[in-house]
């Protein structure tokens, strides 16, 4: 969920911007020049994912897939998500410019966390492990994102606590769908194009 401009308090905005700045710096430093076009196509895929609506009961949710971005790009998730969100702010007016740091941190930090935790599991030789790794990456990154959005609201003011709780609850059904989809995508990529996950150039 994108937080709009004018909601968060200055300390929250500054913390978010600081996390994003450091993350993006590390991400760009780890990226070789030849990886940039590759990263760009993955970033645009991530952007397009947010336009795809998947049915869920009577309603539908759009894909987030920040866990998948984390598994594929590692720390590169920071610049990637930052740019996807910047373009969303410019094209659809989701989020905003000053709040961009906080919004990016909310999605990219969980992406990097699941990368550090579950990358090994996602590239396991056993299919069962890959499915579990993918599911955990997808679902945990979403629930962490939801928690971070809730925390952003909560630290802005204690009168935001009900809104924050609702945001968190709304992330639970999305968490399951994202888990299933990330697991299937990771498994598919491993079987068809393993070097994308293993990062071996040839």
């Amino acid at each position: 969920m994108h937080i709009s401009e004018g909601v968060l308090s200055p300390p929250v905005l500054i913390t978010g911007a600081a996390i994003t700045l450091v993350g993006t710096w590390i991400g760009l430093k780890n990226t070789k020049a030849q990886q940039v076009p590759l990263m760009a196509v993955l970033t645009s895929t991530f952007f397009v994912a947010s336009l795809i609506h998947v049915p869920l009961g009577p309603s539908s949710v759009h894909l987030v897939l920040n866990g998948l971005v984390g598994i594929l790009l590692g720390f590169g998730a920071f610049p990637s998500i930052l740019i996807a969100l910047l373009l969303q702010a410019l094209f659809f007016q989701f989020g905003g410019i000053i709040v961009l740091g906080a919004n990016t941190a909310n999605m990219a930090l969980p992406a990097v966390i699941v990368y550090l935790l579950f990358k090994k599991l996602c590239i396991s030789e056993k299919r069962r492990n890959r499915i579990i790794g993918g599911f955990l990456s997808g679902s945990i990154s979403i629930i962490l994102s939801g928690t971070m959005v809730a925390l952003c609201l909560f630290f802005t003011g204690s009168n935001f606590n009900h809104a924050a709780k609702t945001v968190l609850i709304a992330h639970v059904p999305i968490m399951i769908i994202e888990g299933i989809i990330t697991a299937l995508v990771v498994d598919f990529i491993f079987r068809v194009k393993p070097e994308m996950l293993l990062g071996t150039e040839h």
Partner: protein
Amino acid sequence: MLEESFSSGKSIFHKADARVKIIVACLYILTLVLSYDLDRVLILFIFSCFLIPIARISFLKVLKRLIVVNSFVLFLWFFLPFSTPGTPVFHIYKFVATLQGIEQAFLITLKANGAILIIVSFINTTSIPLLGYALDKLKFPPKFVLLFLLTYRYIGVIFEEFNRLMNAAKIRNFILKTNFHTYKTISYMFAMILIRSYERGKRVYNAMLLRGFNGRFYSLQHTRLSKYDVYISFITFFIIAISMFNQYILFFVMKLIQ
């Protein structure tokens, strides 16, 4: 699929340099976001509404853009008035709305909408490629600028690719439903797009190398600052100054009338 309907035009916003626009727009939004005084926020918001006709953008198109942000704002309206302690105004069932809560929700509404109007009039009046070059000139890391430009370039390609696969599936009677089959189909479609994108990314890089690519895109437009940059900077600083000193100005006007 991506509309840049505001980026062509002949207003002073369209003629001004993108670097100047980025900087002054950020200053303006920052002032708006960090103001907590109702008068000041109101002044900043009202002036941001005037930017749209100055940029010669149709209000109707902007209103469409505002719907998205206001769905989030509406969500906050359901909670904030009732969860903020203060003087009660009215109550629905057992939930009491307070003056302080309503004021905070109102402030957020003004800020969120004002920020969008500023972005639309300052930033969306520049095309994305020009914006990328402006970021380059503002000393953003070259890799970041390159990522920004290439991502913009590939969004259309990948969206089309997804639609193509989706149409092929629809012809085979694929219907989106809440079941595992739907999720599986969408996942595999998506994975296929990722793999194709990966291969495309490699091809693109090799093609770029052949043409002497050295990690940077160059802009052939050598922009120099013009009078239009002075105009929009002046407008912005004028608005910020008025909002900062609104009480003194009001006091002064009162004195003059007397």
